[in-house]
Every structure is written in C-alpha cells, then in structure tokens.
C-alpha cells in the first residue's frame, strides 16, 4: 500500500476528530445534566460544569421514587415517569424478548424458503417484504387501533407483541435471506444424500450454520422493539403496561420539568440498547448492511 502524504494524513485526522465530536458531543450535556441537582443547574445558568455532582437522580429513579435522599426530600411533586420507570423497564424487556423470538422464528422459516426454495410466488413475497418496509407506521396505527379495539386487544402486552412482530417481520426476512442464500448448497445436498429430509436439513445443517445471521437479526429486532414508541403509545393506556419509550414520552406533558431527572432517566432508558450495540457491534453492522443492500 502506498504511503500517505502528510497533508492528507493531517486532513484525515482532523476529519476523524470532527466525526467523533459529531457522534459523541450531544452526550456531554446529558451526562453533566444527569449528575447534578436541579438547584445547581438553575443557580448558575452560565456555567458549563456543575457546582456539585450527585447520583441522587439515578438513586431516585432506580428505587421507583422511594429513595428520595436530602435533595428530593422537600419535593412535593415528582413526575409519574419516575415511579413507573422500573415496571416499564421490565415490560420493555418482556416485549423486546418476545418480539425478538417470535419474529426470528417466523422470519427464519420464511427466509429459508425464499432463499432456497425459489419459486415464482416466493420471489413476489420477497418484493412484498421490501415494499411493506416502506409503509409509514402512522398509516397502520389508525386501522390497527380500531381493529385491536374491536377485538379487545387494547391494553395488553400480548397485543403490543403481536403488532410489533407483524410490523418487524418483513425487515427480519430481508436481513436473513442473504445469510441463507450465501450458505453453500452442497452442505444441504450432502445432508439430504445422508437421508435427511429438507426440513431436517434446515434444522440440523442450515440453522446452526447461520447462527451469526440469526444473532444479527435478533439483536436488531430487540433494539427496534426497545425503541418503538408509536405502537405501545396507541395500543396501551394503562400505566402498569407502559414500556420505556411511552413512560419517557410522558415527561413531555409534565408541568414541572426536572431536567436533571429527565436526563438521568433518558440515560437509563438508552443504556440497554447502547450496551447491545457496543458489545454485539459486529452482528449489528452486518445485519444492517445485509438488510439494506442485499434484500
């Protein structure tokens, strides 16, 4: 490889520094905000660094509003989102896991058929998946609300799970098809010569070999479900069934906004998907590229 001229090297370093600033800078005020008291942030509105650091915001949220400590002792009004956060976190975990498994099972069966058993109608189905990814969610929410209301599926986590599985399914298929298509057909043929049926070859040969693809698809599904606001916002109104995005959206309509508390609750709400993206980055990257470019 050719050596890089020093001018280009300097330009690329500067470019990378700008890119890192673009990606990370918005987190700085958020972290600073979450680590101070509301009093400190209101006292000096010109200061960049807080006068005192405290973990009181996090303690309050993680205890569901019970552990008030000296800072929140005098506060008579706390946003409802604080006490709802722990149960919402659990609901989001439940919905996210169920959606991931449900969509993964249905999508892997379908994607295998689309990639391997090429028929005219399966190819049409693949195109339908591409198109249905582009349907605006808001278009679906109006009829889904009326239908779910009619069949008494409102205010149930099962309803939210069914809706999200259906909405994410086409995307999951698009991510998985390239993985199945890339496996050498010889392996399956060998299994079939050894006496496996197509179904057995799929279960024992194709699925284990495509574990990286399933992992990529699964982690993306979980993240998208964790991020989903509109579906649970419209299908659920009972506080004990709300997911994290719905509870956080509740902060918007609060009369008194505690910004420090809001930033702490935001950091806790984004932590799970941030950890997933950083630890399983390789899978997320491949899954996103595969779902967008090869589907």
């Amino acid at each position, binding site marked *: 490889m050719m050596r*890089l001229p020093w001018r280009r090297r300097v330009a690329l370093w500067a470019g990378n520094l700008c890119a890192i600033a673009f990606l990370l800078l918005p987190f*700085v005020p958020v972290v600073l905000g979450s680590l101070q008291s509301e009093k400190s942030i209101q006292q000096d509105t010109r200061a*960049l660094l807080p006068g005192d650091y405290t973990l009181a915001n996090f303690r309050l949220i993680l205890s569901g509003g019970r552990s008030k400590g000296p800072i929140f002792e005098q506060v008579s009004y706390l946003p409802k989102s604080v006490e709802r956060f722990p149960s919402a976190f659990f609901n989001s975990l439940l919905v996210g896991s169920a959606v991931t498994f449900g969509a993964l099972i249905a999508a892997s069966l379908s994607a295998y058929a689309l990639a391997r058993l090429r*028929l005219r109608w*399966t190819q049409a189905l693949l195109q339908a998946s591409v198109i249905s990814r582009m349907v605006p969610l808001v278009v679906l929410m109006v*009829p889904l*609300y009326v239908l779910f209301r009619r069949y008494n599926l409102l205010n149930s986590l099962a309803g939210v799970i069914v809706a999200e599985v259906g909405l994410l399914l086409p995307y999951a298929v698009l991510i998985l098809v390239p993985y199945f298509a890339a496996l050498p057909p010889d392996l399956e043929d060998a299994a079939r010569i050894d006496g496996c*049926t197509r179904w057995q070859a799929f279960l024992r040969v194709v699925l284990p070999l495509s574990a990286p693809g399933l992992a990529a698809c699964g982690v993306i599904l979980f993240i998208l479900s964790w991020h989903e606001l509109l579906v649970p916002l419209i299908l659920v109104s009972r506080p004990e069934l709300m997911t994290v995005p719905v509870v956080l959206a509740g902060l918007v309509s609060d009369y008194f906004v505690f910004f420090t508390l809001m930033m702490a609750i935001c950091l806790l709400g984004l932590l799970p998907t941030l950890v997933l993206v950083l630890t399983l980055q390789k899978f997320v990257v491949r899954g996103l590229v595969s779902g*967008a470019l090869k589907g």
Partner: protein
Amino acid sequence: MREGELSKGRLALLLNLPALAGLLLILAYPIAFAGYLSLHTVSIRQLRSGELPFAGLANFARLSEDPLFWLALRHTLVFVAASVVLEMVIGLAIALVISDERVWLSRLTRVLILIPWAVPPVVNGLLWSFIVNAQFGYLNRALYKLGLLSDYVNWLGHPWLAMATVVAAYVWRTTPFNILLYHAALQGIPAQVYEAAAVDGASPGQSLRLITLPLLRPVVAVTLILRTTFSFMVFDEILAITQGGPGNDTWVAAWYTYRRAFQPPFDIGLGAASAWVLAVMVGLAALVYVRLVYRRVEYA
C-alpha cells in the same frame, strides 16, 4: 424426492405460513381497512356503537379544506429535504474519512459510529430538548462561553430555529445508518482502482469525483429511498422536542395524523384519510427514486 417428504412448493408454503399470516393480518388487511375507514365517519361515538356511517369522500374534502393539513405537508417536505440531504452529505463525509486504514484514529471512529443509532428516538428528542432549552440548555451555555452569543436564544420559540432543531436531532440519530452503508460500499471498491488512477496522474479530488462517487451510486440510491420514506414518518422527535410548536410551526404529516386521530376530537376517519395521502406520497417518492437513480454498477 424422498417418500413422505413434502414437495418443494408445499414446504415453501408451509414455511411461509407464519410470515404470510403476519403480512396479511398486520400489514395488508390494516392498509385496506384504513382505506375503508377513510370513507366513513369514525369517531369515539361510532366506535362505541360499532356502526360506521358511510361518508363518501367527505373526510378527504375536509382534509383538503384544513389549512393545518397543508401546512403540515409543507413542513414535512421541508423536513424531508433538509434531513435527507444532511444525512447523505454528513454520512458520506464521515464514511470517507474513516475508510482509510492507514489512519490509526479511524479505527476508534468506526467503533463509535453506531452510538447515536442506539439511542431510542423519543429519548433522542428529550436529550435535544434539554440541549437547546432556552434557560438551562448547554447549547446556549457553550455558545455564550465561546463568545458567539451575547444573550441566550430561545431556540424552540422561533419557527425556523425550532424546525432546524428537530432536523438536527433527527439527522444526528439517523446519519450513522448512512455512514455504515457508505463505509461498507467503500470497502468493496478494490484499492487497485485508486492506485491505477494515481499512476495515471489523477488527483485525490478527481478520483473522488470520477471513481468513488459513481461507484457509490447504487448505495446512494438505497439510502435515498430508505431515508426519504423514513423521514416522511418522523414522529418521536416532534413529540419530544416541539409538540408541533411554536404555534403550529413544526406540525408534520405524522403529527397531524396522530393529533387528529388519537387526541380530541378523535377524528379517526380524517386521520385515516391523511394517513392514506401520506402513504401515496411515500410510494410516489420511492417510485421516482427507483426510476431515476437505481442503476447497477459493475467493475471488473
């Protein structure tokens, strides 16, 4: 074929049953049902009684007479144009600076790319609503410390600044997806292509313009389609940052549909009509892009 084994066609049908059921029940049927709702009078009262009186095109007529609907459409077009252009330009710029393996720092940048993508959209909105807050926000603090502002600005109190804030927040979260795709495409271009160009005397600017950009055309088309369709539906950031304000200056199409259908007066028929208009616009945008931009590029 083995005895007792299903034929290819039957197995394919069986394997696709769950996905087909999902597509029909959660996608196809609701879309058709939205069309049905848009032709009927549907509000809380009708939902309770279960009888939906036929209304013909009355919902669409009311839609076309609602100035707020046209305002929301205009804002949506502004939002889509601004966000898609920024996502592509910033995405391409970052993809280009991280693609050179010889710069050590680019390895760190590559690890960080997806961080904004990991942030839930509604959380992203809340973060930015704090950042730009007029009294306590850190944007004002930082600009004041740098001497760029003499007094604090109420970013969300001004029509254009509020729209710019929503665009900035949205672009920050969604650009990583573009960076990722451009980066993947850049890695697919063999280094020999650039070396040959350099031997022939091409400047870095020329090889960018004459080699890189043309080869990126298919992936640029894909991101154009995906990002356009998704930014037509922007909702979470609007809800968390401006709620359509100041006044009605950041009402967009999805926000219009949500407010009309799911907040008083719960005019679901009107919401379904505006949802249909939105779907047609997205469909047209996708069609135009596919026709205009998508061409396969092959290099030996």
